[in-house]
């Protein structure tokens, strides 16, 4: 029973009734209804509680501007959407919606006690709590979070799909009202690539809220004209029209983000699982037309926040677009001519207009006569001073304005169930402001409208301050022509139109930022922000407390900081501040509009780049083998590397010990494919290497390899690796896995910008080669079996050299280099043979009980030998001398970072140096990162004075004890001395400082 539905009219489909629930109660509406229009049709006005005082909230607007009519949509815990505007939610059969921020029910809400103590919850309450001592915040936070909530966030993983889409276009038109349609038509006819985005389901904008019998465009009703525009645009291949699509962010260089509702409005059974729920459009437009319309402002008066108090334009929208009367007995309260039209339209539809209250001293004669002819009582130069009605407005109390910011005369009490208010119109300049354009105050509106543009955009129609339909159509066409012309379609002419409309008086609004009530300031409750419960007196308090800037007053009072971004708030708040500060509107200015224009789901922003596709996981050609052999994988940058291979019955730790032991007692193999590899060629390649490595490279013979350190210009270690000389002018460089891209870019930078005279080319060959690093006493036997007719014996194939060979007929490069101290070979084959090589190695090693070992054993083995890992044992503050590695800084020639090595700071004696640590108790394994201190007792001083920290620490199976590497102040001088390693909850651990090669010093007597 839709008691407030008109028998005809509106753009809803009466042949398709829809059943939905609100707070468990079933209602009927029609296809084309929003939740708000359907509830209004059923006489439901109160749908929410406010954020702070839990006051009853109704429906103020008819679109995305509505501040406080927020509901929870959907009962499924994973899919429910909080804080949805009832004015935007489209209904479908089975839709379940709920009020939020109230308990136990909407009409009986415990939180409403906040409203009884409102005097003690002044503006800045949260702000002062946050700014006070942390203890306050700790105490209040849980209370505030519980009390001042909005809806409930969904739980669990979002089951829906989202997508993003990139598009380039010549002209983007934001807004599909009369101006936007004219702009899009004009630009589209020129051949330009046009995208038109409209926030609501229907093109037409304000035209959909007009009385179809009174206006015609090109001889058609507004709706017919919109349909004709839509049909023409649909036929053009160069045009994309997106409805339910909100342009929510205007970023640099005409990058505009649109959020499209693709399936939310459909009943679940009608949704296509293959398509996304919402889609993000990332548009690069050459030119933009902003035709985003204007928003009507509420009036600020005592008692202005009850359900049943609605914008006059919204009441008109419900009437003509949805065929719904928002009430039966309406008071229209205005400060401009526009709302008189709304009053007459409501009256024509059968709403009894019990009063027009106009704050202006002398409303126009023509309007007064028309009101009189309709029998509407008029109260000129008057204001509403109070309203009553617990869950819906029941009466309005009207008094005359005295012209001196006060009221006078007798109070008239008027019974009503709707108060339609209009405080004038504000151009929707959010996108314009986001584009960094400057707003200017137009006293004629009065309001802020777009001034000079910063980007390639222009505003048209109501968004530009035009308040007449004729102006909107003309401006839209002109803007479309301008945009098309500037995007390269010269000579585009504005589309023509003819308009028939009854003569309407111009809008003639005045500024009334707050209306008097005749009450004391402290007992006046006139709301500026209906979502965040900010009252006019809160803004005045902010000014009294010294917040003179609009930005500060906003934050202090939380004005406009709700999920509605204060679309109905802005100028009323600025006006109240301006009055209080005694400044002009221009001087006070506006707060900055930020993206997004309205809330956008995280899902839409993430698009398809979430879940399994969030980030690439790079895998080596041997990955499948690792996976099927118990590998635990470790992310190393983007790479996945096998960290350890657990066999049945093994733990991570026991597998690690087995791998590391076998690699020294028999043979082990590591997948080293991820190492960075760079092919270096040119006659100056050798000179180049000598400049980028800190050690000497000029004498490396073909067939030989060398370990090198790279420094940054600050002298600190940046990367390391082994480079082989393939020929006089041809080298094969390796880098760390994580450093591969970084090093190549850095080398290119020097070649491109500093040493442009060097004849050197670099090409990454990282993944061309799959690499098996075979090490251990039986490594030579395995290599002999893997490679064809190849003698790997050390006598024939010396350490730090390189050979071309074949393995199973496949060309291979074999390097005799070692990162474990054992006899080792790195076999490189083209990557497509990587897995085959690996299988061949495992087969050849089977009789030696070969073990594949992962990165964890590799780390352990190299630590036993005292080899560093750049980034673990170094941290960007470690110079070559700090590593106590002799011969790593040549004196014969300049190299990157050389001069820094003699800086006063780099030659300090007390720099942290890399040393080994052996704990007194060999079973104690130090914590990596643990602080090293000088005293056996933990010092009281905080932070405790530290000598350095542990960089690497392991339980070594080959030495049968714990080992650690550490950076220690003046560590080289401390060899043989005892230091102490701090730990939590126990006495420091005693450890002896030793040289880093544990195999050499401990291995002999273990």
């Amino acid at each position: 029973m839709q008691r407030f539905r008109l028998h005809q009219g509106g753009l809803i489909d009466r042949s398709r009734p829809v059943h939905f629930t609100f707070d468990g109660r079933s209602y009927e509406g029609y296809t084309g209804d929003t939740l708000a229009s359907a509830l209004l049709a059923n006489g439901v006005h109160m749908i929410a509680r406010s954020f702070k005082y839990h006051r009853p909230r109704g429906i103020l607007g008819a679109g995305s501007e509505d501040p406080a009519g927020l509901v929870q949509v959907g009962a499924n815990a994973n899919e429910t959407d909080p804080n949805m505007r009832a004015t935007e939610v489209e209904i479908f059969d089975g839709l379940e919606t709920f009020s939020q921020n109230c308990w136990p029910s909407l009409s009986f809400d415990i939180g409403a006690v906040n409203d009884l103590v409102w005097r003690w919850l002044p503006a800045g309450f949260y702000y002062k709590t946050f700014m006070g001592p942390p203890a306050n915040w700790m105490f209040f936070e849980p209370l505030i979070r519980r009390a001042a909530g909005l809806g409930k966030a969904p739980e669990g993983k979002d089951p829906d799909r989202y997508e993003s889409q990139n598009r380039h276009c010549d002209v983007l038109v934001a807004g599909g009202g009369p101006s936007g349609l004219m702009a899009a038509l004009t630009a589209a006819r020129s051949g330009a690539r046009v995208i038109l985005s409209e926030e609501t389901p229907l093109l037409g904008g304000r035209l959909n809220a007009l009385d179809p019998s009174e206006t015609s465009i090109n001889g058609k009703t507004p709706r017919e004209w919109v349909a004709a525009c839509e049909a023409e645009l649909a036929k053009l291949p160069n045009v994309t029209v997106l409805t339910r699509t909100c342009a929510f962010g205007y970023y640099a260089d005409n990058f505009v983000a649109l959020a499209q509702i693709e399936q939310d409005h459909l009943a679940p059974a009608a949704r296509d699982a293959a398509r996304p729920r919402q889609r993000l459009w990332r548009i690069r437009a050459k030119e933009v037309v902003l035709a985003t319309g204007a928003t009507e402002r509420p009036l600020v008066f005592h008692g202005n926040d009850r359900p049943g108090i609605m914008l006059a334009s919204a009441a008109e929208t419900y009437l003509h677009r949805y065929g719904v009367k928002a009430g039966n007995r309406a008071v229209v309260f205005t400060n401009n001519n526009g709302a008189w039209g709304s009053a007459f339209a409501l009256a024509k539809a059968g709403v009894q207009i019990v009063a027009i209250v106009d704050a202006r001293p002398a409303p126009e004669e023509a309007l007064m006569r028309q009101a009189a002819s309709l029998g509407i009582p008029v109260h000129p130069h008057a204001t509403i001073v109070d309203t009553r009605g617990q869950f819906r407005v029941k009466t309005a109390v009207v008094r005359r304005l005295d012209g001196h910011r006060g009221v006078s005369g007798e109070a008239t009490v008027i019974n009503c169930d709707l108060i339609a208010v209009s405080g004038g119109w504000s151009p929707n300049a959010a996108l314009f402001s986001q584009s960094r354009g400057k707003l200017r105050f137009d006293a004629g509106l009065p309001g802020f409208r777009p001034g000079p543009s910063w980007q390639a955009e222009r505003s048209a129609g109501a968004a530009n301050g035009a308040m007449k339909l004729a102006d909107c159509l003309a401006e839209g066409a002109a803007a479309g022509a301008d945009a098309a012309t500037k995007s390269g379609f010269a000579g585009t002419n504005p589309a023509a139109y003819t308009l028939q409309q009854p003569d309407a008086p111009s809008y003639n609004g005045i500024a009334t930022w707050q209306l008097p009530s005749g009450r004391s300031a402290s007992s006046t409750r006139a709301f500026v922000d209906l979502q965040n419960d900010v009252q006019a007196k809160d803004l005045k308090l902010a000014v009294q407390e010294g917040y003179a800037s609009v930005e500060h007053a906003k934050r202090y009072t939380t004005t406009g900081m709700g999920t509605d971004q204060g679309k109905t708030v802005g100028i009323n708040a600025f006006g109240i501040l301006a009055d209080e500060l005694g400044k002009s509107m221009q001087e006070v200015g506006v707060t900055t509009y930020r993206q997004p224009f309205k809330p956008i789901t995280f899902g839409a922003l993430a698009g398809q780049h979430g879940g399994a596709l969030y980030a690439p996981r790079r895998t080596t050609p041997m990955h499948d083998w690792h996976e099927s052999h118990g590998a635990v994988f470790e992310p190393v940058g983007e790479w996945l590397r096998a960290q350890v291979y657990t066999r049945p019955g093994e733990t991570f730790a026991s597998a690690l010990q087995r791998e590391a032991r076998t690699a020294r007692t028999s043979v082990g193999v590591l997948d080293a494919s991820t190492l960075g590899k760079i092919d270096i060629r040119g006659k100056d390649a050798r000179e180049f290497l000598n400049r980028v490595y800190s050690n000497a490279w000029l004498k490396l013979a073909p067939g030989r390899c060398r370990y090198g350190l790279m420094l940054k210009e600050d002298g600190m270690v940046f990367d390391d690796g082994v480079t082989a000389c393939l020929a006089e002018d041809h080298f094969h460089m390796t880098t760390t896995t994580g450093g591969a891209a970084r090093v190549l870019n850095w080398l290119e930078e020097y070649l491109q910008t500093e040493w442009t005279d060097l004849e050197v080319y670099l090409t990454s060959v990282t993944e061309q080669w799959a690499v098996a690093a075979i090490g251990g006493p039986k490594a030579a036997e395995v290599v002999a079996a893997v490679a064809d007719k190849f003698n790997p014996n050390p006598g024939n194939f010396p350490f730090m050299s390189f050979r071309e060979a074949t393995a199973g007929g496949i060309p291979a490069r074999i390097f005799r280099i070692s990162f474990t101290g054992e006899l080792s070979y790195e076999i490189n084959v083209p990557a497509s043979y990587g897995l085959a090589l690996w299988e061949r190695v495992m087969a050849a090693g089977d009789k030696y009980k070969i073990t594949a070992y992962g990165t964890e054993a590799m780390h352990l083995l190299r630590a036993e030998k005292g080899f560093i890992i750049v980034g673990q044992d170094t941290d960007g503050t470690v110079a070559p001398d700090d590593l106590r590695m002799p011969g790593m800084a040549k004196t014969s020639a300049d190299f990157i970072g050389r001069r820094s090595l003699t800086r006063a700071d780099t030659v300090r004696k007390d720099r942290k140096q890399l040393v080994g640590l052996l704990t007194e108790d060999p079973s104690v394994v130090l914590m990596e990162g643990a602080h090293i201190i000088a005293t056996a007792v933990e010092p009281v001083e905080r932070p405790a004075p530290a000598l350095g920290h542990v960089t690497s620490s392991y339980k070594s199976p080959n030495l049968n004890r714990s080992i650690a590497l550490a950076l220690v102040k003046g560590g080289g001088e401390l060899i043989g001395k005892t230091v102490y390693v701090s730990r939590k909850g126990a006495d420091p651990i005693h450890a002896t400082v030793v040289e880093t090669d544990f195999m050499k010093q401990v291995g002999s007597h273990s």
Partner: protein
Amino acid sequence: MLLITCPHCGTRDQSEFTYGGEAHISRPANSETMTDAQWAEFVFMRNNPKGVWAERWMHASGCRKWFNAVRDTSTDRFLAVYKIGEPRPNVTAAGLATPSGEPVIGSGNDAAKVMR
């Protein structure tokens, strides 16, 4: 997301580029004769002006070439791009000094977006 024009590849999305700091700083050839302070000037010290300056970019996801750009840091506008080795073009900021008309020296806060 800015649009940046690579001198070799044309205009591309900012996500394809990496930043390289101040341009036209050459590695000293005579570092061994420099004082610590002079060397530190080269290694550590960079200008950070509000306004027009020259900086380096690399088209990392494209041709991987470094190039120079003149950009107005107060507006994020690129005024010129040019290849390594070419002299800095003589360009100055055009149009509005800053988008919000805020002082040239200051935080860059464009809070006051109203025309003054």
